[in-house]
């Protein structure tokens, strides 16, 4: 770490100039959520009912399938950023913070993967027997 010089003391402590990256991603995904969750909300309202046949038929079409896949990816990334902010504010001990970030990363990866898999399975799985 530091060698006592000004540069040495700040080196490795965090980003310079790229510090707004997470902040920007939070905004980009927020706009994405506005569109994609908006799409889901309108779809739920417009579908004649929410039975298995109606909803699974809807999710097999390209636009709903792609929109829902994008929704899963986008919403889990947005949640990951939000949870990291929560942890940053309330978990101060380095080891605990690491454990929390690790748990959030695992939950994000697992949630995104399962969500996408479910949609692909239904959309590409053909007509069930």
């Amino acid at each position: 770490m530091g060698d006592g010089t000004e540069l040495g003391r700040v080196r490795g402590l965090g980003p310079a100039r790229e510090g707004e990256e997470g902040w920007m991603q939070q905004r980009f995904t927020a706009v994405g959520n506005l569109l994609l969750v908006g799409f889901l909300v309108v779809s739920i309202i417009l579908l004649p009912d929410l039975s298995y046949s109606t909803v699974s038929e809807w999710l097999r079409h390209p636009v709903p399938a792609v929109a829902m896949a994008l929704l899963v990816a986008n919403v889990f990334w947005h949640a990951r950023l939000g949870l990291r902010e929560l942890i940053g504010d309330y978990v101060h001990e380095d080891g605990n913070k690491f454990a929390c970030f690790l748990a959030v990363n695992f939950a994000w990866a697992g949630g995104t993967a399962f969500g996408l898999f479910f949609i692909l399975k239904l959309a590409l799985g053909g007509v069930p027997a």
Partner: protein
Amino acid sequence: MASRPLSPHLTVWKWGPHMLVSILHRITGDGMAFVALPVLLWWLGALAAGPEAYASFQHQATSWYGYVVLVGISWAFFNHMTSGIRHFVMDVGAGYEIHTNKRWSVATTVIGILLTAAFWAAVIWY
């Protein structure tokens, strides 16, 4: 450490609507991460698994506690959405004047509740 000065926190401020909006934004956002996302995965997983799994999801979702959770999720979303849009306005440097800030703090909270009611009315009657 014990004698170090503490920065002012929740207990010393006079409550205002802007504080409520900020706190609700965090609670609804992180709340959705813990509740809405698992429900979303359950819903998608049930759809992928077939009619029987979907029926058991529906059975829980349409029970009284299921509706409590679903209404809660929808309110969390609409509240987070309206206060999130307020954040975008403030990101461009607008809306910081005390009366404007107060008015829109109240408005986003109320609009969030109205949108939740409108959503369920539309789901039920449309």
